[in-house]
């Protein structure tokens, strides 16, 4: 318990951001029509690909001779980009179909 409180005290800023971001997420999604649930899920899924930033950091910090780190980082970047690009592209394709037709 003590360690937990210490962690919060040492990372006060992050803790604040974390809690506020939870509320922002809830508020932003509240009362969305069912029509948009599928594109929304797909769009949110693309956003979770933000983990790619971490994968790039792994590679940037890796020693050029550390092949394990480089290969794992490489796969992580490929998978992260797949998540991001595929996710946004497919969401766009879906929403394209909703466009008002005259």
């Amino acid at each position, binding site marked *: 318990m003590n360690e937990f409180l210490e962690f919060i005290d*040492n990372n006060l800023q992050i803790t604040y951001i*974390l809690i506020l*971001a*939870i509320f*922002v*997420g*809830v508020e*932003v*999604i*509240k009362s*969305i029509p*069912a*029509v*948009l*649930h*599928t*594109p929304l*899920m797909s*769009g*949110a*899924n*693309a*956003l*979770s*690909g*933000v*983990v790619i*930033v*971490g994968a*790039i*950091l*792994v*590679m*940037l910090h*890796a020693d*050029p001779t550390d092949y394990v780190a*480089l290969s*794992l*980082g*490489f796969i*992580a*970047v490929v*998978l*992260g*980009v*797949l*998540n*991001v*690009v*595929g*996710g*946004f*592209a*497919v*969401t766009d394709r*879906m*929403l*394209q*179909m*909703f466009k008002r037709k005259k």
Partner: protein
Amino acid sequence: MGILLNIIYLIATVTFVVGLKMLGHPETAKKGNLIAAAGMGLAIIGTVLVHDLEVSPLIYMLIAAAILVGSIIGWLIAIKVEMTKMPELVSLFNGFGGASAALIGLVEYGKNVNDATQATTIVSGIIIGAITFSGSLIAWGKLNGTLKSVVRIPYYNSINNIVVIGIVIFAAFMVATGVDSQLLLYGLLATGLVYGILFVLPIGGADMPVVISLLNSLTGIAAAITGILYNNMVMLVGGILVGSAGIILTVAMCKAMNRTLGSVIFGAFGATAAAAGENKTMGSIKNTNPSDAAIMMNYANNVVIVPGYGLAVAQAQHVIHELEEILSKKGVGVKYAIHPVAGRMPGHMNVLLAESNVEYNMLVEMDDINPQFANTDIVLVVGANDVVNPAAHNNPASPIFGMPILDVENAKHIIVNKRSMNAGYAGIENELFYNSKTSMLFGDAKAALTELVAELKNM
């Protein structure tokens, strides 16, 4: 350099919030998606280029290659995939995100074993990433039919509990001792993967959208954890946004199906469906053929079409649009009744019908259409089953009891197009088919509807 990168991350974070907000309104959704995508691009380019690190050209080349490969594959999948396959695809992409988070943890563990806080973050990132990855792959396999819908494992609960306790002890041991063992690290990864499989395997196909949404939320949390590790705000906020939005979306879906999250996760659906499968035949059914159905519709004042996933599987969404147009031309009032979970995901049917150019305002949501069924001459149910099953109202023993449904049995006539008498996704009988007002039009949706349209054209 640090200032510039921080500003870039700040801008990206704002685009995520604004983009997500805009995704929630039909008029702004497309723009919102693009804004968030632009922010993500900015964050990625900034991370690669804006820093003071000395990085060898080899690593830059590897990063560029990885981004290029991932972009091309992701783009190709996204533009090629059929809209009916959307739930599988979201699930697959989501699994990739989770895997990425787990891999990052694997690399970072060795460098941070001595710092208990960092080690805790990394270990949780690996566990959550691994669960999301294997869970999403199982969900993907279930949705595309590779895996049998409901799998029952003997002693499931005991095995499940042992694995969960195992993960906790494993993780606690690693953090507490700060042991730098690759063997233990990969062991932890494996345990997480096993749990992801155990978690999704017993859940029924009808509940899969809820699971995907939940797993999506978990990937967000994994990204946020990685953000804490690197003290990186764009990852932290982006991940938490997805995490909390995903939970809200999951709860909204559960509500649409009148299920609690707990009953989804602990697989009540699978358990009761077996008992309900013992139902005897519930009377006799009445067959019809396309020409009789065409005559009935031709002289009707109004027709309500209830499309289900079977329609999409048969790729009949274009034919149904043709049917609707020809009926409208003949002066028959036509509407589509859309159940919130029609298709395989909430809102999926709207996407599918929009793809075949059905006017947005012809789609009527459940709460608005239900009072109108009493004044409807003909309801045409195409490839839908559970969402029109009256057992949801009148059979407390049914696993779908209490689920809001389309009250099609109030209409004057009901025509049901189905391939066979097989049970629906929830695996239960439907007494609607035995109703004296119901006629069954057996056959592939596309073939049957094409004949129906041809008959109507000749009248």
